[in-house]
């Protein structure tokens, strides 16, 4: 029983400012992810790996096919779901670690992370956020500061904490270890392994071969979905 199933997914862009230039990205994307496993998307830059993750999360539109996400007892097709349904799925079924952190200028790091636990009491959410940030080696004194001024690696770890704190059955990771040192890479490998043990289905873009080998159960070569 899959947690996530992509059926014949298709994506292209039409750039109207470039005279209507049509850019096919991927077509015929087919793969499924079982609970407790990790699928790694591979392929050269620009082949559509991030586009696939963004379509699953609903931040890119899907031009064809189905993106089926299981939400306890029913299945939602993100490709055709209403905005409201996608928002609900993001609250309880999918979390996403993007490459870049988007945060409100004045919000403290601990709250940036804690706010992802919408159903928890504020104190409990902050305690759990602090635990996870500590595990990711974010020093206590930085937790009260907004993350805007952090280094690239620190921001990425805040982003990881945001994605990993809520316990969603589907976890999408876009280059989670790209700007991390080896110590923090090992922490992220551990965290991903923990999610898998908890039955989470993970889809990840990971360039670092060592990390990929450590977490991936299945490799999907996105170049094989190149659109004609």
């Amino acid at each position: 029983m899959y947690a996530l199933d992509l059926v014949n997914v298709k994506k292209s862009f039409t750039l109207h400012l470039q005279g209507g230039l049509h850019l096919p990205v991927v077509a015929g994307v087919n793969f499924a992810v079982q609970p407790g496993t990790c699928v790694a998307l591979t392929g050269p830059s620009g082949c559509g790996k991030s586009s696939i993750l963004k379509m699953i999360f609903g931040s890119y539109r899907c031009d064809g096919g189905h993106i089926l996400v299981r939400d306890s007892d029913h299945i939602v097709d993100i490709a055709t779901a209403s905005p409201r349904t996608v928002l609900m799925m993001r609250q309880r079924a999918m979390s996403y670690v993007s490459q870049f952190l988007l945060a409100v200028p004045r919000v403290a790091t601990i709250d940036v992370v804690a706010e992802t636990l919408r159903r928890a009491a504020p104190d409990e959410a902050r305690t759990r956020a602090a635990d996870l940030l500590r595990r990711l080696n974010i020093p206590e004194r930085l937790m009260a500061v907004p993350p805007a001024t952090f280094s690239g690696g620190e921001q990425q770890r805040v982003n990881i904490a945001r994605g990993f704190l809520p316990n969603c059955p589907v976890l999408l990771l876009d280059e989670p270890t790209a700007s991390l040192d080896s110590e923090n890479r090992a922490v992220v490998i551990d965290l991903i392994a923990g999610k898998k043990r908890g039955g989470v289905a993970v889809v990840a873009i990971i360039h670092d071969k060592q990390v990929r080998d450590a977490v991936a159960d299945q490799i999907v070569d996105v170049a094989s979905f190149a659109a004609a």
Partner: protein
Amino acid sequence: MIDAEDHALLQARVLTKWYGLQIGCRDISFELYPGEVMAVVGESGSGKTTLLQLLSGQLAPSAGHVFYRMRDGVMRDLASLGEAERRFLFRTDWGYVHQEPALGLRMAVSGGANVGERLMAVGWRHYGRIRGAAKDWFDRVEIAYDRIDDVPTTYSGGMRQRLQIARNLVTNPRLVFMDEPTGGLDVSVQARLLDLIRRLVGELRLAAIIVTHDLAVARLLSQRIIVMKDGAAIESGLTDQVLDDPREPYTQLLVSSILPA
């Protein structure tokens, strides 16, 4: 926070407004749910403010309807409401934050009275309690309590805007309309205000419709977005989807016109 059990709070159905032969906005339809923030973006003259005025019952549509779920749970056409019901919406159930705070405040009475007045309009009489509520709201919008007896003409632009927000939210509205709430403010003041709006909307689980020409504001505050051009909604959907994967030529132009900081 989106809850599947919720019913739509506001519904626009093929709303159209003509000013003589000039189109104000046309064929706008959408539903807004409790806790949702929707941004309306587009250039000046695209019909954003006309739409906001139609939705808030300040303008009568040439065609189409606005339905609102009253506190008894019944969906009512704004056009069918009696004067008392309309007053109730304006005084209690809705907020309207103007770009220019002077339009939404009474500049000749104190800051505290500006907040207290909305409570008195809904029947509060006990001075101490009104004062207490005003003080609480001064805290929440981060205005120093010792300014409570000063008139807003002595406030800075950012303080006036925060006072306007306090005045609007003190009656626990369910829906707030905001017309360029951060327009005309310094960037640092804007950031503080955005953070404040975002926090209050989340805490109070408000529904809000925010007109802005600033896509960064839309991205930070809203989950859904409508892009307007020449009075029509040319593209709508999830905010991140429309801004990251714009489909219409005009939306692509808007998104590509942002200067990176």
